[in-house]
């Protein structure tokens, strides 16, 4: 499933994540997988809303995992390792005043996902892929 996400559209932030959650529940993914995937999807969605002009959020559902992909057109991230640090934020002041952009987005994604990959090109955009393994009764 795919969703397009508009930069600065805070009113709709979270809609894509909610749809993805619904789909995962329909499929019957493990409760914990759903929980983690929602956090990843929402933070990824929010990153596009805060930083980018526009982007696309996609979820690919497999029996053993969920892949979340967020691709945006925007400023990109100059220093990825810095961006991964908790509390590091490039969100402008007015957005932080709204309670967003506390610099927890990427660290939260990393915490919730089983694998994550981030590539970015300054002034072009960012691509994030995160995989959440589905806990099955076997593990």
């Amino acid at each position, binding site marked *: *499933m795919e969703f397009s996400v508009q930069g600065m559209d805070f009113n709709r932030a*979270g809609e894509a*994540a*909610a749809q993805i*959650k*619904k*789909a995962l*529940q*329909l*499929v*019957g*993914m493990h*409760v*914990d997988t*759903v*929980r983690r995937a*929602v*956090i990843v999807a*929402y*933070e990824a969605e929010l990153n596009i809303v805060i930083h980018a002009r526009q982007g696309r959020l996609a979820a690919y*559902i*497999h*029996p053993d995992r969920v892949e979340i992909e967020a691709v945006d057109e925007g400023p990109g991230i100059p220093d990825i390792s810095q961006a991964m640090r908790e509390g590091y934020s490039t969100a402008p002041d007015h957005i932080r005043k709204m309670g967003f952009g506390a610099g927890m987005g990427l660290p*939260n994604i990393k915490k*919730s996902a089983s694998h994550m990959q981030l590539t970015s090109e300054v002034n072009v955009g960012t691509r994030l892929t995160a995989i959440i393994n589905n806990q099955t009764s076997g593990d």
Partner: protein
Amino acid sequence: MPHYFHSVMLDRDKCKGCTNCIKHCPTEAIRVREGQAIIIEERCIDCGECIRICPNRAKLAITDPLEKLADYQYNIALPAPSLYAQFGPDVLPGNILSALLKIGFDEVYEVAVGAVAVSNHLRRYIEHRPRPQPVISSACPAVVRLMQVRFPGLLEHIAPIETPMEVSARLAREKARQEHGLADKAIGIFFITPCPAKVTAVKQPFGKRSYVDGAFSMSDIYGAILQRLSDAADDSRNSLSPALGVGWGKTGGENHAIKEHALLAVDGIHNVINVLEEIERGELADIDYVEAQACTGGCIGGPLTPQNLFVARVRMEKLLKKLADCRQPLPDFPSDPDYYRLPGPIPPRPTLQLSDDINQAITMLEEVEHITAQLPGLDCGSCGSPNCRALAEDIVRGYAENSYCVFKLRERLQLLASEIVDLAHKQPPAMGKHVK
């Protein structure tokens, strides 16, 4: 035997199949088929939204009849705090309790009293900063059931603490046994309920048993109380009515009783859903406790309360001011934390799943996406499903057909019609010009 007890039912004679209710159900539990609403049992959380919305009064709540008092030797009424807000400004809780005794109860035990015991215990529980944050109230059974169906990942946030109704029933039962030497079987405990959700909580509790034996609808008993109020005024029974406990009847009351923490109060089932979604995304970890009530305004806005919510709210505020000034000493409550514990964790109710087999479920999901994309997306409800996506799910589950969509039906009719016209223009070769 149905798997789930439900207080909310359909009156088949009154239902016109108008589809008004299907869109307001928070768990998409209603469909209209063959001109009648059907409630999908596993999904219904007895919130009563459909009772409020139905223009034909075809949704009703099953509660116990007053005749049930005859089944027990000694009957105790448990008035919900919201009951006190249903009467005129001069009616005090004491008057209402006296009237209840005149109706035929042998004793009354105010749920407001149990609510104080629960508040004390909740305060202690939150002080230990249990994880995960925030703790979510267990008091509204409609919210708890909503979480079982739609937010199973959040169930571990629920405070593992019994509701004021259960705690009050247990305290009342123990008191009656001690004071009158009664056997358990002889005691009947009846909750005066503002909502169907509490009825279900009594009939199908999470633990093995409920301490409550039955539930009378507040609206049903309202008239009987009113009739007996006038002569109750002079022999007004002493009520304890602690303001902190009575306040539980309205939004914010729980939080007020707990105090001194980061607390959030949310009311109205659709607002509750929004807040739960926030918690699900990992937000609100700075909040200690979330008081969530399915009804707008809290229990004073319950579907079975006779009074208009806005009037009840004013009455409640006034009453709370009055009660705050005249504190009565309360009984000693048990101090053992286990006394207040829920009997066990609340299990999820996974009713949304398309198939038990995950591979098949994924294939079905793809089909749902595919069908949804072809439907008009108007969410008109004429098909009897709450929205286009829900119809697509129903089709894939085998409960509906594509042609239930009036637009799809029209498309097909148009195709068929143009085919008929085409056919009509064709002439069999044997028909010559002279044949008309």
